[in-house]
């Protein structure tokens, strides 16, 4: 135990290398010297000593190790090999020595922080020992000062005596240790002490000076920094700002190289700055700028400043715009295609998420039927219809022949197409699944993905088509010079070839259709706005892609068409064209009936896109089949789009949650304010109130539901309205007929006159005007003056009005209560003794409060209780207890007087007893 003490002391001293401490390093030397001397002791003791030491080691491993560590830090070199040899049997030491190295000391600041934390913990704990006494003091009925000083005084002994030994073993060990002088308190010799004291002042002065110098330097530095901070110089701030901007720039450049994500964030910040600038136009329309404008004529510098300002504005508004583009570069890969096609800029950006914008777009398209696109569109369809009619006649002729001849081919191709369809459908379904999985949060990403997939899919047929092209070109090149057989072969081959690509094209077209279908499907699957939104988006993108696809295939188609035309010329009109028929059939199947043009008009068709469509069609319309297919397609598209539009708009118009509005708001009770005559005590928390509100509301709802048919509310409100009407000042007028009035029966005075002499009585607002559910009879309230003299709010320590009233009702005067009771009830809360000094509390008080049945406790039990003390009391429970005492006392007083207790006291007492049977009421000795 002693060992530990010494080490800790030493440690402390070493740590406390403070200004005015002369650390006594020499002390350690002394201790170790003693150790050395001890080692040369007699051999007899050695064995026993070693054993003892090992035993000790086992007991206090840690401390021993610590001590070793500490002593090794001493200044003198000491030969510890003897010790080690002696202690060999205890391997733990060896282990310790080999493994244990001093860990790195903590950083100074961290160490300080830890120290502080620990110190504070200690302080808080120690101070808390007073809590009991303080609480008791606060709650007592009467405090007498000065506090009683007990005879027992607590004296802290500065230097505790050596540890008391209890067992003989301990004694032995201790005596041995003492004899060995392994551990001994260092003692500062007197000379040292004197020397230290003598030296100290000079040194301290010097140290102080040095410290002061450092502190002064630091102070100056800080002051400078503070001044810099406080500076109001515009120039300074401008320079600062510029520097900051420059830094930002360089940082951004760096980031662009190293960390693109961070750069993106920076750019976004810039974007924010731009937005702010654009919102506020701070540099453009500031007051300063406005004023400078006047001065600019005279002052060149002002002009320059203005220009600079303008430049800043421009920089702020434009520079980051570039940045924005670069940000969106990544995203715009797919979106570019759409934009190239003339798709609205809305798509592919966040705005596509915005339902309002979409709606607006659709509305605009609807509401502008007379613009260019519409007329073009109309023209286009007129053309189409004409051609249709012409073509249909030809078709009818052709059909019969085809049906006969090409049944087999049809079948085969049908199968092929079906297969392809299947695969495509699967693909679409996959996409749908994907879209379903990711939901709204990642809509843009979804779009991207979908787009990519489509692009990939599109890529494949494109490749195929290119291949075909090449083949055809070859076949054409090689075909012509050859003979008839070759021709026939070629014919066949071509027919096959042309069948294939047509099939492919069909496939693609089917795909388009299906893309539209897929747009439809989720719309059907997921009802409601969100689903519709999504579908809309998907459809839009797919529409665009469809257009893209159209572009891609136009070339191919044109090539093929040319070929077909050539063939037709060769073979005549009645040539065999199995694929066309199939196609038309397909289309016929798909499109049940022609769609009315009125419906088509409603479809969204922007100008540029329309133009292109028309161009395409003029090219395509070279063949009947194409024309038909195109027609079918476009009709399909339109139909679907119209459908979707309708779907999307439908939920908007029919709002499902509207049905609640049927309830007449006037039939509800108005529950605006809840003012009570006696307010709740302050300590009722807000949370509690909130809860109450909820409960009340729910209760009201229940009542409302229960009496839904009884029209109670209406009855009540009508009653109240009547009362209000009755209470209103009568419209009496003091006007009398006189000058300027006609007299006679049935003659009326002029209304002007009546109005002029109408009595106007100032009327205070009704008291129930703000309380919806109360009808207040103001005539019955005659005690306004009395009310003024009454307590309006429940005073703090009381919990109920009843309690408070009881406390007021109970008299304390000697006229009404016996002398002894009166004295107790009117005892002052603090009693001081004249002419004596009240000393602060001492630890005696702690002792007294801990002793049972002494001091404050007794006082508290016997004394009368007051709410004054209740204020100080922390717990509500105790408060209630003390209240109870009041009431009990009253009743006891009454009982003692030998009369029947008052009726208002009796129930109180009974109630108290019944509510708390566990507590025995204390009857005062009055």
């Amino acid at each position, binding site marked *: 135990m002693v060992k530990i003490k010494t080490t800790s002391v030493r440690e402390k001293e070493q740590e406390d290398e403070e200004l*005015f401490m002369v650390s006594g390093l020499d002390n350690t030397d002394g201790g170790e010297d003693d150790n050395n001397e001890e080692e040369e002791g007699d051999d007899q003791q050695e064995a026993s000593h070693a054993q003892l030491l090992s035993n000790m080691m086992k007991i206090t491993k840690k401390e021993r190790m610590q001590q070793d560590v500490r002593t090794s830090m001493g200044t003198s070199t000491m030969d510890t090999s003897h010790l080690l040899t002696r202690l060999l049997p205890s391997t733990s030491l060896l282990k310790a020595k080999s493994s244990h190295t001093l860990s790195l000391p903590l950083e100074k600041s961290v160490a300080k922080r830890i120290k502080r934390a620990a*110190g504070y913990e200690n302080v808080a704990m120690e101070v808390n020992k*007073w809590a009991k006494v303080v609480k008791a003091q606060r709650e007592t009925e009467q405090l007498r000062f000065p506090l009683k000083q007990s005879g027992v005084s607590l004296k802290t002994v500065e230097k505790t005596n050596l540890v008391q030994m209890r067992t003989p073993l301990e004694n032995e060990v201790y005596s041995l240790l003492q004899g060995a002088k392994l551990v001994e308190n260092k003692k500062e010799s007197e000379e040292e002490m004197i020397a230290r004291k003598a030296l100290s002042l000079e040194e301290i002065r010097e140290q*102080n000076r040095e410290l002061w110098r450092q502190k002064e330097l*630091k102070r100056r530095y800080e002051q400078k920094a503070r001044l810099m901070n406080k500076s109001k110089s515009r120039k300074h701030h401008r320079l600062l700002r510029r520097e900051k901007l420059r830094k930002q720039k360089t940082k951004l450049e760096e980031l662009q190289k190293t960390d693109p994500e961070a750069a993106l964030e920076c750019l976004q910040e810039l974007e924010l700055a731009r937005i702010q600038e654009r919102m506020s136009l701070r540099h453009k329309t500031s007051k300063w700028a406005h004023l400078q404008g006047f001065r600019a004529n005279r002052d060149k510098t002002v002009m320059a400043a203005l220009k600079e300002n303008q430049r800043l504005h421009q920089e702020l508004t434009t520079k980051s715009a570039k940045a924005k583009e670069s940000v969106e570069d990544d995203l715009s890969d797919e979106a570019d295609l759409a934009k190239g096609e003339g798709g609205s800029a809305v798509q592919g950006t966040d705005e596509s998420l915005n339902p309002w914008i979409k709606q607006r777009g659709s509305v605009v398209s609807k509401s502008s039927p007379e613009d260019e696109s519409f007329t073009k569109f109309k023209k286009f369809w007129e053309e189409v219809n004409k051609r249709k009619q012409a073509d249909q006649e030809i078709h009818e002729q052709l059909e019969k022949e085809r049906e006969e001849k090409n049944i087999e081919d049809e079948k085969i191709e049908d199968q092929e197409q079906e297969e392809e369809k299947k695969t495509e459908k699967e693909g679409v379904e996959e996409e749908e699944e994907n879209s379903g999985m990711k939901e709204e949060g990642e809509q843009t990403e979804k779009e991207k993905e979908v787009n990519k997939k489509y692009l990939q899919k599109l890529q494949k047929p494109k490749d195929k088509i290119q291949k075909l092209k090449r083949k055809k070109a070859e076949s054409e090149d090689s075909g012509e010079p050859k003979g008839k057989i070759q021709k026939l072969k070629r014919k066949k081959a071509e027919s096959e070839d042309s069948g294939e690509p047509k099939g492919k094209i069909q496939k693609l077209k089917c795909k388009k259709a299906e893309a539209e279908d897929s747009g439809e499907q989720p719309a059907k699957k997921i009802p409601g706005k969100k689903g519709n939104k999504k579908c809309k988006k998907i459809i839009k993108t797919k529409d665009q892609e469809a257009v893209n696809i159209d572009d891609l295939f136009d070339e191919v188609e044109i090539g093929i068409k040319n070929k077909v035309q050539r063939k037709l010329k060769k073979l005549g009109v009645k040539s065999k064209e199995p694929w066309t028929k199939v196609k038309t059939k397909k289309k016929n199947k798909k499109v049940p009936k022609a769609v009315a043009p009125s419906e088509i008009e409603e479809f969204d068709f922007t100008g540029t896109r329309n133009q292109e469509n028309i161009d395409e069609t003029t090219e395509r319309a070279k063949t009947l089949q194409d024309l038909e297919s195109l027609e079918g397609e476009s009709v399909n598209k339109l139909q679907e789009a119209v459908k979707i539009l309708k779907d999307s708009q439908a939920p908007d118009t029919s709002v499902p949650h509207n049905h609640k509005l049927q309830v007449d708001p006037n039939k509800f009770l108005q529950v605006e304010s809840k003012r009570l005559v006696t307010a709740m005590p302050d300590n009722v928390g807000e949370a509690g109130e909130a809860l109450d509100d909820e409960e009340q509301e729910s209760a009201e709802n229940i009542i409302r539901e229960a009496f839904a048919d009884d029209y109670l509310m209406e009855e009540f409100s009508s009653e109240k309205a009547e009362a209000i009407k009755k209470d209103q000042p009568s419209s009496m007028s003091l006007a009398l007929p006189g000058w300027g009035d006609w007299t006679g029966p049935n003659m009326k005075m002029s209304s002007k006159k009546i109005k002029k002499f109408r009595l106007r009585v100032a009327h205070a607002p009704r008291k129930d005007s703000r309380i919806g559910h109360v009808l207040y009879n103001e005539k019955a309230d005659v005690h306004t003056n009395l009310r003024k003299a009454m307590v309006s709010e429940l005073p703090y320590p009381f919990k109920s009005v009843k309690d408070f009233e009881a406390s007021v009702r109970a008299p304390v005067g000697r006229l009404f209560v016996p002398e002894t009771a009166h004295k107790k009830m009117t005892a002052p809360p*603090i009693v001081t003794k004249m*002419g004596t000094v009240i000393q602060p*509390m*001492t630890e005696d008080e702690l002792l007294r409060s801990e002793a049972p049945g002494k001091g404050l406790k007794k006082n508290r039990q016997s004394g009368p209780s007051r709410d004054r003390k209740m204020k100080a009391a922390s717990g509500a429970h105790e408060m209630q207890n003390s209240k109870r005492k009041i009431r009990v006392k009253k009743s006891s007083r009454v009982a003692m007087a030998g009369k029947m207790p008052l009726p208002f006291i009796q129930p109180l007492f009974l109630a108290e007893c019944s509510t708390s049977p566990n507590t025995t009421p204390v009857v005062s000795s009055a």
Partner: protein
Amino acid sequence: MSIKSINVLSRNPDHYMRETKYDIHKVQRNYDPTLHPFEASREYKLALNSVKLEKVFAKPFVGSLTHTEGVSALCRHPSRLSCVFTGTVEGELRLWDISHKKCEWTVQAHSGQIWSIVAAPDGNSFFTVGNDKTIKKWSLDKAKEGDHDLPIDTWLSDTIVTGISHHRHRNEFITCGERVLLWDASNKAPKFSYDWSTSGDRNDASVASIKFNPVETDLFASCDYANNIVLYDTRAKEVKKLKMTLRINALAWNPMEAFILTAASEDYNAYSYDIRKLNTPDQVVNIHKGHTAAVLDVDYSPTGREFCTASYDKSIRIFRTEEAHSRDVYHTKRMFKVSCVLWSGDNKFILSGSSDHNVRLWKSKSNEKMGIMRARERSAINYAEELKRKYGHFPAVRRIARHRHLPKHIYNAKNEQQIMRESRARKDANRLKYSTPGKKVHIPARQKVVVGLQDDGVVGFQDMDNMPGTSTN
């Protein structure tokens, strides 16, 4: 014939007769409440009368002790009630016999302002600190003798010492200024330096006031010009630092509640802290409002139930520890800025030193009757007090009890500040109402005044370890 027994009314004369003529008349009373239907209303009237009488008798001013300069420091003798030391801004030190309003001894103690005076616990000597960077120890006995104008001991410091506080038992005292130094009275050099000038605190500033805890004697607290309140333990050095929004001018420990510390703040309020809760957000247990200018000094009554504050607004106020508003306010026409205040050891008087060259002596309870009283008078006063308490909530009583005449400048300032407070509250409420829910939270007033705690990573203390002058890394 049979004689019927007749019941005759007979009483024991002892029950109603006085033994001697000096006895008081015995009055028989029937306490049946039904016989006293107006007991409550009678008591109410009594209460109303007594509260009016309280106003009539409220004459707190006792007398003044005139100096030749503004008074800057006050100190009471630890055991003698009539013995009070005062120090002025010109360095004059006076010893007063309060009961006779007589100056017993005057000496030019320092060449500048006397910042603080403190008595040694034995009462034989006392210490002064002044602008001339010295700490001087004076003997009371020699002062009583009269013409003795040399200190019995002097300590030199390298900086101005602005405050001093003595340990309750040990022969140690602590001074503050640019450094907080612990001295042993037997030694010329400081025993220890709570050197926070090297602690790397960016907001390093000199300490304005320092106070030893009278109960838990190892603790002491200081307040400095950087708005900090620092709690020290002589054993564990600096233990906790609390930063307030505005400067703290003075500190006082509750002599009966070891963990309650009250601070006089520059923001017109006094704050009570529970040092056990310094870590938690509710370290401020009470805000004592009322002054209309900076509070310069605070002192606890020896009972620990009340404290008084001195303010720049030319008034002193008395607060109950558990209440937010002052119990009473004292002012006179000619009293100026009050720089120091002191509660007498017997809880009866308050002394206030102001810049109008006067120390004023007030009764701590304005309507208290001083001197010896008969038991009947005493009990009547007690009864009146009880009635005032009992009916204190009634509007008529309350109005009279609360009413204080205030000088114009305080009255106007109070109204103005009320408007400002309301406006701020309204603004806060509006902000709370119209901001996105959850974004703004209501911060209680008690938490608003505290900027932060050391080691809590709060702004004020954040970078204190990374400042130049610190030896980190």
